[in-house]
């Protein structure tokens, strides 16, 4: 057990050296981090300012420069788990199908008689057919409008299922189409969320899909989750609609076919009657900026793409003197009167806005509308003060814990304790080195995991030393005793650590956020402590024994 071939020695020493070098950037955290930032900025093609070059060169480029990511609980920031209301889209799909079906069924009016939509369940489209004896024709007509679903799992099925119940035609979304729709909604939502957060200019956001219909958003450095919520809370669906009737204060006014009754955003109780089909939608915008109108009030200026500009130009040319409505998320922001033909495809939204609101609105318009509403499941914010306190507290606790364990080990095992302490130090260095290399995140429970590992890491060495003591008492010579100590303690070390590793793996698989951070450091700690105990300390001890060749040995 005590013999090491040369290449084995080299490998062990190289691993240890790597651990020290890889952990080093964390000791000079701010220098290494700003150097990494500067390198990334330069690679992104930003100008080579002296500050950037100086920041880059502050850390030697031939050394590893990865540092551990600090979790939100240590750095401060906001964490948001939202659920996308994917089912909102179903009703929308049915509505648009209704528009199509209406046209097709009307063509068969002679056979079908009058047709009417029954509104009772948002998840299905029910159409009452007057001449229900011709239901077969109605079903065939509606079925002709459906199209096959293009997906792997839904092969052979169509997007809508058409059936009948007494005198009603019942149309629902097929399961395959629901899945496909959900998938599309999620992808769009992720994209829009990403764009909105990027537009807001935050640093290193994490945006991840979780499960079938959730999105996890983590943004370091944001002071409160409300800031984030303000960016995500609105779908920001902007449309420009023709005003088709006089304003009213009666919420029960019937707007008439093809029209909508929409509330005003500024004035409570005021309603506008606007056309259901918008003239132009927010998807035709190419840009939006916070600006001021001629009266110096905050406003949002925008410009359309070519199609939008043409449509809008045509509409304004035909409706000079008429009002049109700017509708945002189902509310009329303003309804200015068209003064002249607007041909340039640019305009301004004015309303009762604050500067903050116009800035946010312009971000939302630039990023695009969310396909469905986001429901917040979980929001967590950690202020930067608490994060900094936690880092400080974790550092002190780790240092005191390390010192305590180290002193205790020397008192108990003398020189052998010193060797165990070298292993313990290497152990911590390697945990940090590995964490940096794999891009792991250090959280406060993660620091707890490291401190806990310090206590438990010496266990393997304690097992070996105690065993060696026993062998010495049994009268073996030093070489033999140490050798037996290692070989006999090995099975206990492996069994004991594997069982703890099982717990760490389960924790990682089921835990979330900070708990995962704990599982990672605990798991890494187990691996490195076994390595240091059965390779490093053994190598040191065997070298020492071969060098001194002691006749007697006390541990």
């Amino acid at each position: 057990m005590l013999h090491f071939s040369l290449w084995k020695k080299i490998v062990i020493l190289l691993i240890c050296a790597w651990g020290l070098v890889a952990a080093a950037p964390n000791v000079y955290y701010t220098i290494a981090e700003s150097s990494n930032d500067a390198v990334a900025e330069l690679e992104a093609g930003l100008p080579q300012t002296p500050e950037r070059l100086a920041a880059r060169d502050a850390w030697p480029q031939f050394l590893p420069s990865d540092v551990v990511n600090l979790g939100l609980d240590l750095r401060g920031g906001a964490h948001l788990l939202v659920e996308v209301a994917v089912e909102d889209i179903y009703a929308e799909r049915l509505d648009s199908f209704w528009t199509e079906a209406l046209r097709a069924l009307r063509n068969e009016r002679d056979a079908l008689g009058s047709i009417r939509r029954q509104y009772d369940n948002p998840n299905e489209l029910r159409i009452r057919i007057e001449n229900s004896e011709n239901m077969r024709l109605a079903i065939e007509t509606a079925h002709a409008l459906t199209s096959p679903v293009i997906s792997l799992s839904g092969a052979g099925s169509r997007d809508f299922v058409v059936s009948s119940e007494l005198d009603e035609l019942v149309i629902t979304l097929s399961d395959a189409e629901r899945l496909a729709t959900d998938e599309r909604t999620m992808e769009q939502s992720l994209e829009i969320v990403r764009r909105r957060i990027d537009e807001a200019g935050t640093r290193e956001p994490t945006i991840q899909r979780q499960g079938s219909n959730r999105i996890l958003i983590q943004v370091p450095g944001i002071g409160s989750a409300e800031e984030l919520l303000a960016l995500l809370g609105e779908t920001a669906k902007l449309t420009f609609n023709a005003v088709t009737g006089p304003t009213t204060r009666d919420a029960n006014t019937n707007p008439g076919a093809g029209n909508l009754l929409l509330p005003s955003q500024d004035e409570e109780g005021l309603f506008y009657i606007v056309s259901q089909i918008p003239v132009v939608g927010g998807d035709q915008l190419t840009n939006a900026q916070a600006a001021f109108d001629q009266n110096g009030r905050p406003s949002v200026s925008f410009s359309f793409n070519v199609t939008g500009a043409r449509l809008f130009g045509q509409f304004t040319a035909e409706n000079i003197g008429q009002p049109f409505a700017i509708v945002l998320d189902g509310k009329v922001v303003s309804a200015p009167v068209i003064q002249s033909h607007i041909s340039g495809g640019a305009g301004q939204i004015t309303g009762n806005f604050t500067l903050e609101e116009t800035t946010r609105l312009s971000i939302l318009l630039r990023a695009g509308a969310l396909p469905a509403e986001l429901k917040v499941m979980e929001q967590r914010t950690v202020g930067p003060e608490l994060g900094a306190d936690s880092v400080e507290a974790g550092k002190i606790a780790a240092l005191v814990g390390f010192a305590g364990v180290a002193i205790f080990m020397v008192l108990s095992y003398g020189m052998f304790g010193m060797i165990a302490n070298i292993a313990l130090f290497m152990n911590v260095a390697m945990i940090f080195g590995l964490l940096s290399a794999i891009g792991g995140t250090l959280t406060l429970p993660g620091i707890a995991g490291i401190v806990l590992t310090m206590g438990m890491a010496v266990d393997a060495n304690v097992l070996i030393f105690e065993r060696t003591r026993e062998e010495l008492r049994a009268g073996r010579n030093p070489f033999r005793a140490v050798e037996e100590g290692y070989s006999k303690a090995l099975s206990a070390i492996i069994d004991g650590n594997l069982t703890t590793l099982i717990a760490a793996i389960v924790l990682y698989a089921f835990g979330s956020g900070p708990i995962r951070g704990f599982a990672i450091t605990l798991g890494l700690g187990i691996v490195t402590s076994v390595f240091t105990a059965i390779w490093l300390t053994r190598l040191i001890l065997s070298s020492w024994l071969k060098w001194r060749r002691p006749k007697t040995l006390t541990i």
Partner: protein
Amino acid sequence: MRLKLVKDETHIKFFKFARITFGASVVAVIASIIIFLSNGLNYGIDFRGGTMLRIESPVDSGVGAFRDVLSPLGMGDINVTEVFDPSAALDAGTVRHEYMVRVVQQGDDDAEQNGAVALIKATLDANFEGLIYLQTEAVSGKVSGELVQGSIIAVMISVIAVLFYVWLRFEWQFSVGAVAALVHDVILTIGVFSLIGLEFNLSIIAALLTIVGYSLNDTVVVFDRVRENLRKFKTMDLKELLDRAINETLSRTVMTAVTTLMALFALYFLGGDVVRGFTFAMIWGIIIGTYSSVFVASNIVLWLGVKRDWSKPDPNAGTQFADADA
């Protein structure tokens, strides 16, 4: 001269009072279950849903003042506590007053739930000056339900995985003993949390799983020695043999418990308030886990008996003896 917590050779008769120690464990487990059933646990918002704010105030506003301002909001049960943080007291000259405001879940509507944070902040800012919001959390009932479920599954899976591993490496009697010890540790930890009303949240689940790992580590080291002795002393009485194994590993058991506890106490007193609940659970778990590997796990092995005579098949005892040396 070396510091020795345990003498070189000890001959403590651990099973002399086996009935009493095991009885005490059984009583403690039953008591924990009763306390848990009657008191319940002080669930954090991870498991209950609701809103939590951690606030630092430049002046000693007093818990009552916060409550007076917040109760007219009609949010139901509002819980305000002052956080006592001994590590903060180490920063000379800075006197800080930290408060924790917790509000139960607001209806089923998630929007309402999220509005709660904003509403509480606005209300407090209108009444007090210079408040710093150190931490805010809002968890909806839906997510907290999933977290509870996930945690229960996690603890159960780890116990089953461990049962399986020990069964592979040792005999089934050892497996039963090890798992009984684990369940004992987990139940007693939950009992303590129920008894003193400490907040039970996700990090406590992490602590429970770590306790499972540690306690098992401890148990396995003793069992490893038992396994070795079983091979060495084929005719020794099982009780004597177990006693011997525990005595032989006692020094290591104490050493490791002490170093781990040293690290944990450093965390408990210096690691800040956020990890204190976690560290408390760990400290308790290490003490209980060390106790249980001797007085629960080994005791059960003693009672179940281990097959000793390898030549004759014995249907009442373990049939396979793991002869692994790895």
